[in-house]
């Protein structure tokens, strides 16, 4: 009987693929946002509104992760931005190799973007574990889901740099304790940013768009510094 010390990350292979992607995004100065939430919390709708607001001033693109249907990619293409669907078959999350393959298959349309949105499979658990080479994760929480979700799904709420509370226009009609939701997010993720939006009315969208453009500007400074030191 022999004992062998291993001390290796279970997801080391994914981490290697993600590091390659990250270096590539670094070189092209592309800000990459990994959006994670339950199904139906408004990821695609938020991206539709984001595309409408920013597509004339920035080069945007999207990868849409789903188990089935091309529907989400079609919705974003209709908004005038390049989008490619990644169908996982039955798998509950995207991984770095799937992202790499999708980008290679799409070629030029998704190269040299200002912002690439990766909309993960609707699921608050599994996508949390897989680095996709993104700059940051965004978790969405719609007011119809209930304010207890951060403590129920602590992994994603502690890891996402940004929490977006969506469907804020429905707040008067649902028993959602906004203060409790804010406190839970802050407790799990004191350094994270919290944005409250309604894609339907446009309320809060300025804050969300401002956050994106500010993160893009920070990334460009970093990319330029990288080029200068290379």
């Amino acid at each position, binding site marked *: *009987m*022999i*004992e*062998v*010390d*291993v*001390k*290796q*990350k*279970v*997801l*080391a*292979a994914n981490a290697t693929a993600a590091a390659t992607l990250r270096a590539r995004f670094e070189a092209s100065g592309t800000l990459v946002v990994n959006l994670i939430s339950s199904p139906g919390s408004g990821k695609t709708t938020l991206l539709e509104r984001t595309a409408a607001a920013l597509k004339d001033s920035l080069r945007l693109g999207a990868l849409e992760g789903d188990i089935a249907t091309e529907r989400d990619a079609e919705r974003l293409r209709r908004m005038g931005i390049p989008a490619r669907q990644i169908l996982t078959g039955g*798998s*509950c*999350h995207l991984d770095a190799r799937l992202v790499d393959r999708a980008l290679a298959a799409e070629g030029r349309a998704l190269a040299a973007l200002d912002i690439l949105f990766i909309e993960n499979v609707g699921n608050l*658990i*599994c996508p*949390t*574990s897989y680095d996709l080479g993104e700059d940051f994760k965004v978790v969405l929480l719609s007011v119809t889901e209930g304010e207890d979700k951060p*403590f129920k799904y*602590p*992994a*994603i709420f*502690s*890891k996402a740099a940004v929490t977006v509370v969506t469907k804020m226009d429905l707040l008067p009609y649902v028993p959602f304790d906004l203060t*409790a939701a804010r*406190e*839970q997010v*802050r*407790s*799990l*993720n*004191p350094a994270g940013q919290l944005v409250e939006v309604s894609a339907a009315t446009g309320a809060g969208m300025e804050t969300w768009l401002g956050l994106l453009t500010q993160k893009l500007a920070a990334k460009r400074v970093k990319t330029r510094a990288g080029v200068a030191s290379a």
Partner: protein
Amino acid sequence: MHEMGLAIEIRRLAREAVADRGPGRIEIVRIAVGELSAVEPDLLEFAWEAAVAGTEDAASKLEVDFRPARQTCRVCGEIAGRAPGSWLRLCPRCGDALTVSGGDDLDVLRVVFEETVPAGGARS
């Protein structure tokens, strides 16, 4: 349910670690699973049984070393005695904001391997 994919990856890493030991079977794989790793240890042990079924490692056991996250108050220090899966919004002593650290482990720690003599091999 990404535990099945993880179980397959854990077996791959375990096999890689003992690759130069010749034929044999894995007896135990010890892994660390953090409270914030988005992995359910029971599901992972169940997935492990499926991942090794019908292989030379079919009798092996996946041992999970659970690593809790820590909630800490700036003033009062770490909150002791918090049950896994229960989170505090604010420090129960002073009401101050808390921070969370640790608990995101998902590592293969150790493999216990039993070498076997190949059939028709070194029996002298």
